[in-house]
């Protein structure tokens, strides 16, 4: 089994699934979502099997590698492989896809080919998500990076809310702008590299001597694309529109997984390929990250649309992730990469449970709720739990990652860390004010009786809640995967952690 091209298989199964779902004969149309769920679950099992082959003690950067020439004339290879970070991201995507499919069960009530297309697009998106994290060829990464946009564009533009066209185009334009700038960087990088039939391989492009100006320019090209994707202030404005217009399941995959490609790219490409430029850009990036944290939080406090509110909390959380990445410490790096995982689950819970409430109330406006803890106590309970995960309550998973980011940043950059810590107060405000407005107060007068959380919804929520609790008390399995990859990246950058200023041995007095 070890010779199996695991990553290709994991990536291909959902694509096959997408084709099967799209081509289901008319008689089986109403089975589209079952088939889609089945394929996504098989993919998850395969992904876990692949992860079991992974050895976190290995010396080489990538494992489960595959390599074939693709366009040798241009140095492009079909090369896949994962480090701990990529593996964790892929696993997160594989868990979230079936959760989202289950959450989207009644998203296309009209059925027919529209329903088939909807679920087929979700499966296609899963393939690209696996590909983008698994690609170890810069050009292949770029192809996946851009290809992801297509299913998302259709998922938002065809299945979204009333302003879906506007949101989809805005999303596309922002991503397109970022992607094209990056493309320039990609091509330039190839020219500075050793060239040849496999000249786009990450391993061939690591540790080049690029020259200060060229390196900085290429860094900026890559970073811009990733900052748009992440999204960071001030290029975040596409996110709230996309998140509120998209179906909640799409929003989860968009914010929870796709946006992580931005922060993933910062680690894999910006830090690893352009270490000197990364150090050069650090002050500006930290500033943008801190602004994102506070700005996203303040904007979240001011929102009246539930989905927009959740989107802005993500802007704040991505600020934390970027902060930890550019702190350039093992602690900050471990925190950021763990945050990427935890944020996926906690945002998924907020979006999906929020959507269950929206479906019952028929409105996304927070003031339209009030007193719903009395109407749907079960949903209110899990919604609060998701919110507490969003505000990084100690004991839940996001606390571990957020605190690691802060402490890792504090090791090198005191002021940014202290200012970012203000974010924990703001996070309490945006979550608890939202909860208060929606859930507390006297029981509202409703026209029809409202069901509390259903069995299907429990199945959607259960894995997410389990993730909060397990990773909060026992994050070690995830950290064991992430630590070596983070250390390796920081080796490429050529930095080591600052030593304690007055350690126990008393040498510094």
């Amino acid at each position, binding site marked *: 089994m070890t010779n199996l091209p695991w990553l290709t298989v994991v990536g291909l199964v959902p694509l096959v699934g997408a084709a099967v779902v799209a081509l289901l004969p008319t008689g089986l149309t109403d089975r589209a979502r079952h088939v889609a769920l089945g394929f996504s679950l098989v993919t998850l099992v395969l992904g876990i099997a692949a992860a079991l082959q992974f050895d976190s003690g290995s010396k080489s950067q990538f494992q489960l590698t595959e390599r074939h020439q693709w366009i040798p*004339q*241009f140095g492009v290879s079909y090369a896949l492989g994962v480090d701990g970070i990529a593996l964790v991201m892929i696993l997160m995507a594989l868990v979230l896809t079936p959760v989202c499919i289950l959450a989207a069960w009644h998203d296309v009530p009209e059925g027919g080919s529209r329903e088939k297309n909807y679920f087929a697009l979700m499966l296609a998106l899963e393939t690209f998500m696996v590909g983008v994290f698994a690609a170890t060829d810069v050009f292949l990464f770029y192809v996946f990076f851009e290809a992801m946009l297509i299913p998302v*564009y*259709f998922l938002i533009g065809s299945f979204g809310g009333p302003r879906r*066209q506007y949101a989809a*185009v805005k999303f596309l*334009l922002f991503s397109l702008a970022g992607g*094209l700038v990056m*493309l320039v960087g990609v091509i330039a990088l190839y020219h500075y590299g050793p060239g040849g039939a496999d000249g786009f391989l990450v391993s061939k492009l690591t540790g080049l001597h690029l020259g200060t100006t060229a390196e900085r320019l290429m860094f900026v090209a890559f970073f811009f694309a990733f900052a748009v994707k992440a999204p960071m*202030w*001030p*290029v975040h*404005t596409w996110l709230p529109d996309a998140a509120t217009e998209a179906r909640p399941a799409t929003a989860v995959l968009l914010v929870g997984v796709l946006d992580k490609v931005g922060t993933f790219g910062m680690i894999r490409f910006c830090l690893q390929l352009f270490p000197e430029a990364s150090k050069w850009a650090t002050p500006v990036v930290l500033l943008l990250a801190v602004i994102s944290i506070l700005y996203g939080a*303040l904007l979240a406090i*001011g929102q009246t649309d539930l989905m927009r509110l959740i989107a802005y909390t993500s802007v704040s959380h991505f600020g934390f992730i970027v902060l930890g990445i550019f702190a350039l*410490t*093992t*602690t*900050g*790096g*471990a925190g950021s990469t763990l945050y990427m995982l935890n944020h996926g689950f906690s945002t998924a819970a907020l979006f999906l449970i929020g959507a269950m409430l929206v479906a019952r109330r028929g409105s996304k406006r927070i003031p339209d709720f009030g*007193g719903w803890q009395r109407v749907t106590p079960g949903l209110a309970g899990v919604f609060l739990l998701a919110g*507490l995960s969003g505000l990084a*309550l*100690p*004991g839940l998973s996001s606390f*571990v990652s957020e*605190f*690691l980011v*802060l*402490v*890792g940043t*504090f*090791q090198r950059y005191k002021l940014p*860390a202290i200012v970012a*810590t203000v974010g*924990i*107060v703001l996070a*309490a405000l945006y979550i*608890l*004010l939202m909860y*208060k407005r929606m859930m*507390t*107060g*006297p*029981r509202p007068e409703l026209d029809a009786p409202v069901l509390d959380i259903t069995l299907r919804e429990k199945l959607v929520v259960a894995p997410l809640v389990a993730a909060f609790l397990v990773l909060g*008390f*026992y994050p*070690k399995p995830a950290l064991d995967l*992430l*630590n070596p990859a983070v250390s390796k990246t920081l080796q490429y950058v050529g930095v080591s*952690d600052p*030593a*304690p*200023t*007055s*350690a*126990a*041995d*008393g040498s510094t007095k």
Partner: protein
Amino acid sequence: MHSLATLATAEGAAAAATGITAYAWLLVALPLLGAAVLLFGGRATDKWGPLLATGLSWAAFVVGFLVWLAMLGRGHDSRAASLHLFSWVPAGSFKVDAGMLVDQLSVTFVLLVTFVGSLIHVYSLGYMEHDPDKRRFFAYLNLFVASMLLLVLADSYLLLYVGWEGVGLASYLLIGFWNWNPAYATAANKAFVVNRVGDFGLSIAIMIMFVSFGRVDFAGVSQAAGHAHEGVLTAIGLMLLLGACGKSAQFPLQSWLGDAMAGPTPVSALIHAATMVTAGVYLVVRSSFIFDHAPSAQLAVVIVGAVTLLFGAIVGCAKDDIKKALAASTMSQIGYMMLAAGLGPVGYAFAIFHLLTHGFFKAGMFLGAGSVMHGMNDQVDMRRFGGLSGAMKITWATFGLGWLAILGVPPFSGFWSKDKIIEAAFVGEGWRPWVFGGAAMLGAGITAFYMSRLFFMTFHGKRRWSDDVHPHESPLTMTVPMMVLAVGSGLLGLVLSLGGMFTTWLEPVVGAHDENERAVLSVPAITVLTLLLIAAGVAMAWLRYWRDAVPQVQPVGSMLTRAARRDLYQDDVNEGVFMRPGVHLTRALVFADNRGVDGAVGGLAAMVGGTSSRLRRLQNGFARSYALTMLAGVVLIFGALWVIQ
């Protein structure tokens, strides 16, 4: 990296846990299990859930009691034990294991929390009997007990933080337990957010520890603190103090406690009087190795304590809501503890001693207040009480013992602990003993006044009841816990003072204080003066609230009274300085984000794609043409590359 056990042994402080102590994790696990079963079990557990929760709380007490017995069996200096649980956060250079430190200090808390906590579980069986959400209430109580035990048993600041926030969550959930009332929901939010401001301090403190010492566990930090620069320790101390101020409702983060009385009364007794709010004092005493070497931070702790004890006492004089008056009193009493903790080794043991006696008498009085409300249709306005001593004899007697204890009248509990704090505050040189000792002594007089006012207004004088109330004594489930706590209010101080029993017990943790340190006044003089002030306070209250008729409508009052009724304008200050500017900033940013940032970036995007009107026309099938464009671009670039090569 050394394991915790080796380091601790090297220090001679804590050996690895054996026997029953190795099962100390059950202390947290049992109530946590209860919370999980009740919360996730849903309505199926409605019937037996509350009983299960109560049983598990008592089970935790039994485990704690056995752990304590085992500890007594060991020698005076080898009682502490450490318990390694699992590798918790191994991230980069930051490695923290989950472990417990079972020493004299933590076991003291374990006994207090599980004993008082279990009594309050029993009381709640009666008090909450008719509440439709009773199960949820007991789940939260269990969650609280588990978190509080985690807080005091944790062997590192990071794990303490988990318990710290866990009790905050339980507090939030219980303050807002009846959150169909919007004011209660707001009170819950306020408590959580103000505590988060404190958490900001705690977070920064932990960060400084890690950056300075590379460790955040108690053993590692205490070892490194001896060699560290004073500036670093002062910074850590001040940040810890900020955290303590949030949790313990100390000035300037005291504003949430009064509002927290929105929670059901058993909650006020357990969380907002006896245990959780004292966690800040625990934090300071636990961090003695930091504060002992950071005199400026110690001074700050003393100042905070002195200011808060007077602040709370003054506010307590003006409140007519029985629970809010008790809350102000709690603030003030914790101010005493904080002051003592800031005095260093001379005060640590007395801070914890007072915390313990206060835990009994204040919890008892809150339960008494609950009993009064139970008999008076949930009335809380003391101007509508009066003369209840006849109608509720047990409540009157148990409350009376609590009252005598908090006054500090010998031989009741409070005398033994509070008088010692006042004495300790008079120790030192220069202006400090006079200022802090004077404040502590003055506070005792004011305490006597407001507590007597409360006691007389409720149980004595003329009956001022509304027409529809028929006060009656509460059921046994409620009165028995009150009686048990009353015994503690009466005797605990005396018993624990015999031969300096309690201070000797804590000595290995907080260190011995120098017996040669003298107070600026002789001890008998301090005691006599304090008792005179107390007598004066009681007499004044007797004149105004027992002998004279109490008006049923609040009189206008002096300027100071009006200020005290408004909590000395704390909310007005917070609103003016933080909330309103914050609201304006948020509104401005939302506006700017929609118009400004989005507009600017959107404009740029429009330039890329042509004018916005053309964009609209391009919308249909845009992705296809985009894909085509991209394909064309890629082909073009490949072509170019191929040509170049």
